[in-house]
C-alpha cells in the first residue's frame, strides 16, 4: 500500500516497543463480538491507473462540450488557470484550521483578505470567513436574527427564494417554534410587497428576500428596506448569483442587516453543486451574534502585524451549546479560491463581467421576444429569466440535449404543477452564437 510508510520490519520494532506482538492486540479493549472476523465487503485494492480510467469513464456521461444555459443557483463561470495552482499549493491545501497562528499566517491573512473583499463587494461592515453554502447559511441568518431580536417569531420569506434554500430553511425551522410565512410574487415576478406589509408587526422576526430572485427578476430592495423601517424585523438579503453585485446597489447601501450569498458564483467550479461556499455578512453591531470563523488583525510579540482567529467565544469549541452556530470545518479553501478569483478580476473586471452577463441575457430576451416566445415575468432581470414554453419543458429539454444544447432548468423539478417553465441562465461562457442556436430551436416550437 503506497500510502503507508512503515515496512513490516519497522512495524515489528514498533510493536515490540509497545509490548505487543500483533497490531490486533492493540484492540483488546473492543469486545470480541464487535471485532470483525473477515474483511469488509469492499472491492480489493485497485491501481491508480485503473481507478482514473474508471473515473474518466464515469465523468464522461456529462456532456461538458455542449453549450449550456443551466443556472438556477449554480453558475458556469470562466475560471482562470491561475487559481488552481495556487489553491492546490500544499501549504494551503493540506493545512487545517489556523489554531496555531504562528504557523498559519498564510491562511489567516488570506481569510482576512476574503473578509475584506466580501465587505467591499457587499458594502456590509463585517463578513465572516465562510459558511457551508447558501441554503444552510440562509437558515443560519434566520437563527441569528432570533438572537438579535428575541421576541420575533414570524419568518417572512419571499416566494422568490431558491426552492432548495426554502426547503432547507423549513427543515431548520421545523424543530423550533418559529413560523414561516411565504410572501407571494406579483405577476411581474417581484415579491408582492403589499402582501409583505400585511404581515409586518412586532412578531415579525425578519424578512428574507432573494434580491435577484430565483426566477431571475430583480427585486425592489429599496422599497423592501423602506417597508421594514420602523419594525424590528431584520432585513435579510439572499443572493446566489453574486456577480450581480458588479452592477447592483450593495446590500450595505440598502440597509440590509444580514446578507447571505452563494460564493460558487464567484468563480468556483460547478462540481455538481458542491463544495460551494456560504457567504455571510452583517452590520457591525451584530458582530458578536454572528456564526462562523473570523480572522482578526493583531500584533505578534515583536510588535509586527499578525493575524489570528478571533471572537472565538461565539464558537462551538468554546461556547458549546451556547455557540452562535455549530459550524466547525467550513469552506476555507473555497473562500481562498474566491479571494484569488476576485483579486484577478478586480474592480473593472467585475463590472465588465456583470455587464457581459446582462448583455447576453438581454440579447436572449430580445431575440426570444422577437421570435414570439413568451417570458413568464416582465420584471427587470440580470442574467436569468423564465420562458413559458408552449410544450412540456421536461420533454423538450431532454430532446434538445440530444440536439446538442443543455437548454435550461425545467421548473417542474421544483413545482409539480409547473409543466412549461424553463429557467435560462446566461453567463460569460455563452455567446450570441449559442443564443442564436437556442432561439432557432425554440422557434421550431411555434
Amino acid at each position, binding site marked *: 500500500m503506497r*500510502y503507508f510508510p512503515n515496512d513490516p520490519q519497522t512495524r515489528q520494532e514498533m510493536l515490540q516497543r*509497545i509490548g*505487543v506482538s500483533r497490531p490486533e492486540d492493540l484492540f*483488546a*479493549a473492543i*469486545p470480541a463480538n*464487535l471485532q470483525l472476523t473477515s*474483511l*469488509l465487503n*469492499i*472491492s480489493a*485494492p485497485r491501481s491508480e491507473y485503473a*481507478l*482514473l480510467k474508471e473515473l474518466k*469513464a*464515469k*465523468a464522461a*456521461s456529462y456532456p461538458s462540450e455542449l453549450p*449550456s444555459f443551466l443556472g438556477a443557483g*449554480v453558475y458556469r463561470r470562466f475560471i482562470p488557470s491561475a487559481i488552481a495552482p495556487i489553491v492546490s499549493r*500544499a*501549504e494551503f491545501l*493540506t493545512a487545517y484550521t489556523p489554531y*496555531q497562528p504562528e*504557523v498559519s*499566517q*498564510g491562511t489567516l*491573512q*488570506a481569510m482576512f483578505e476574503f473578509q475584506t473583499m466580501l465587505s467591499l463587494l457587499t458594502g456590509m*461592515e463585517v463578513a465572516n470567513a465562510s459558511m*457551508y453554502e447558501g*441554503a444552510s447559511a440562509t437558515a443560519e441568518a434566520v437563527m441569528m436574527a432570533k438572537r438579535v431580536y428575541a421576541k420575533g417569531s414570524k419568518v417572512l420569506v419571499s416566494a422568490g427564494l431558491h426552492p432548495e434554500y426554502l426547503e432547507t430553511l423549513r427543515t431548520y425551522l421545523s*424543530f423550533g417554534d418559529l413560523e414561516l410565512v411565504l410572501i407571494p410574487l406579483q405577476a411581474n415576478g417581484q415579491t408582492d410587497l403589499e402582501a409583505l406589509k400585511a404581515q409586518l408587526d412586532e412578531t415579525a422576526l425578519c424578512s428574507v428576500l432573494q434580491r435577484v430572485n430565483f426566477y431571475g427578476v430583480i427585486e425592489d430592495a*429599496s422599497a423592501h428596506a423602506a417597508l421594514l423601517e420602523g419594525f424590528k424585523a431584520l432585513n435579510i438579503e439572499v443572493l446566489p448569483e453574486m456577480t450581480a*453585485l458588479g*452592477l447592483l446597489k450593495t446590500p450595505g447601501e440598502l440597509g440590509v442587516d444580514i446578507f447571505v450569498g452563494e460564493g460558487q458564483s464567484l468563480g468556483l467550479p460547478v*462540481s*455538481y*453543486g*458542491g463544495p460551494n461556499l456560504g457567504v455571510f455578512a452583517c452590520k457591525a453591531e451584530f458582530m458578536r451574534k454572528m456564526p462562523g470563523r473570523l480572522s482578526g488583525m*493583531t500584533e*505578534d*510579540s515583536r510588535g509586527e502585524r499578525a493575524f*489570528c482567529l478571533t471572537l472565538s467565544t461565539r464558537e462551538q469549541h468554546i461556547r458549546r451549546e451556547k455557540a452562535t452556530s*455549530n459550524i466547525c*470545518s467550513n*469552506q*476555507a*479553501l473555497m473562500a*481562498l479560491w474566491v479571494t484569488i478569483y*476576485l483579486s*484577478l478580476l478586480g474592480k*473593472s473586471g*467585475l463590472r465588465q463581467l456583470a455587464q457581459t452577463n*446582462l*448583455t447576453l441575457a438581454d440579447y436572449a430576451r430580445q431575440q426570444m421576444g422577437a421570435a414570439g416566445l413568451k417570458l413568464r415575468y416582465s420584471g427587470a432581470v440580470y442574467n436569468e429569466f423564465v420562458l413559458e414554453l408552449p410544450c412540456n419543458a421536461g420533454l423538450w*429539454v*431532454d430532446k434538445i440535449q440530444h440536439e446538442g444544447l443543455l437548454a435550461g432548468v425545467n421548473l417542474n423539478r421544483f413545482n409539480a404543477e409547473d409543466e412549461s417553465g424553463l429557467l435560462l441562465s446566461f453567463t460569460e*461562457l455563452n*455567446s450570441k452564437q449559442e443564443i442564436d442556436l437556442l432561439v432557432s430551436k425554440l422557434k421550431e416550437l411555434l
Partner: protein
Amino acid sequence: MSVGKHGMVFSEPLLFELKGGGKSGMDLPELDLPLIDAAELLPAEFLREAAELPELSEPEVVRHFTRLSQWNYSVDGGFYPLGSCTMKYNPKVNEVAASIEGFANGHPYAPYGCNQGIKRLLFEFEQDLAEISGMDAVSLHPAAGSHGELTGMMLIRAYHLDRGDLKRTKVLIPDSAHGTNPSSASVCHLESVELPSGPDGLIDMEALDRLMDENVAGIMLTNPNTCGLFETNIERVCQLVHERGGLVYLDGANMNAMVGVTRPGDMGADVLHFNTHKTFSTPHGGGGPGAGPIGVKSLLEPYLPRPVLFEKDGRIEMDFDRPKSIGKVRSFYGSTGVLIRAWTYIKTLGAEGLREMTLWAVTNANYLKARLAGDFHLPFDSQHCMHEVLLTDKFQQERHVSTMDLAKGLIEAGFHPPTVYFPLVVSGALLIEPTETESKETLDHFADALLELSKKSHEELAELPKMPPVGRVDEVLANRKPILRWQPES
C-alpha cells in the same frame, strides 16, 4: 527532519495595500455582442458605484498568494499530529479525480442521463460507507461533520415526533465530547445534558442510568472517545438508551481507529457521521471544505434528507418522494468534489488497505505513547490507546511548564503542535494523533523533540517560537479590539 532552518519566506502586504489601478488580472471570454451599459437596461436606483476591489495583474496576484502560502505549516511539509483531526496524507490522485472535466462541470440540474456517472459514483460511495459502518443507509448531503451531527439529531427528533413522542427534548452528551456535539444539538432545539466521564475516561454507566429518562431523545457519543479510548461498554450503553426509548448518535470523527476492525452499527448506533476530511483522506484546506455523510439504521431511513439515491433498471435515480423526510439541509446533494476524493481513497485502499490503515494508525499512536509514557502524564491508561494518545502537562507543570509552552516549543522544533487543551476533561491536554501515514522515523524525531522540550524551563520556552514568520500572536488584543477587515486609509 525535525530541525528548523531559516527559509525563503518574506513579508507581504495585504492585497489591498498593493498598488493597483486600471488593470485586471483576468481576460474575460470575447463577447460577440456589443456590451450594453447597465444604465440602459436597469433603473438607476438599482445600480451601484463599482466595488473597490484591488486592480492587479496576474503576476502580482500569483506572487502575493504564493508568498502567503509560504507562511503555512502543512501536512505535505511536515508532521501535523493534531488530535481529533486525522491529518493524514492527502493523496494526489484524489485531486486529479475531482478535477476531471465531466465532474468539475457537471450541473446538478442537467437533463436526464447527463449525471449518471457521478450518481453511480455517489451511490457506490454510499454503499461502501454503509458497509464500513454497519449502517443500513447513508446520506451524503451534510457539508461537514458538524452538519452531519445536526442532520443526525434532526433525524432523531423527527423519529420521536413522528411517533408522537413529543417530550424528548434532551440529549445526553459526555463531558469529553467535542464542542460541535452540544452545539449541533442546540441548533435543532435539543437541550444538552452533560454526562460526566468516569475516572477511567469512559462513560459512567451509573450516571447514564440516572440521566437516561423519558425526556431524553438520545445520546451523542464519540467512539473511540476524545481521550483516545474505546468505550468498552458501548453495547450496554446502546442497550440502555434503546430500552428507555432513546436513540444513539455516534460521532464518527474517530473512525480512523475502527474501519475494517469494528463497526458502530454492530455496537448499536442508530445514526453516525463520517468526516471524509479525516478518515477518508480528503484535504483539510486550511479549515475546509469537508464532507459529513451520515449513516443510519433502517428505523431512521424514512427521515433522511431528500432526495435519496436508488438503483432502478441499472440506473441510479433520485427519489424526491419521501413524505417523512426532514427535507433538505443544504442546496444540491453534498460536497460532491470532496466525495469523489473520498471514493477514490476507499477504492484505492480496498478492503485490505482500509483495515491496514486502521491497524497502523493505532500502532503509530501506541508507539508514541510508549515513547512518551513516563515523561508525560497519561491521565487514562487502562487500555491501549486507539488512534490517538492523550497526555497532560501535569508533570511539566511542577516546573511551571504548560501545554502552551510545549506547543510553541514544538513549532520551533519544526512540528505542528498536537491538539491542545482539548478534551476538557483533563487539565492541560495534549491530544496527539499521528495517523498511519507517518513513518517511525518521523515519530521518533517528534518524540525526541517533545522529550527534550519537556526538560526545558518555562523561561526558555516562553520566548518561543522564534523561527516562524511571526512571534507569539496576541490573541487577547484581537478579541478586545476586533479588526475584521482592512479599511482604506482616510
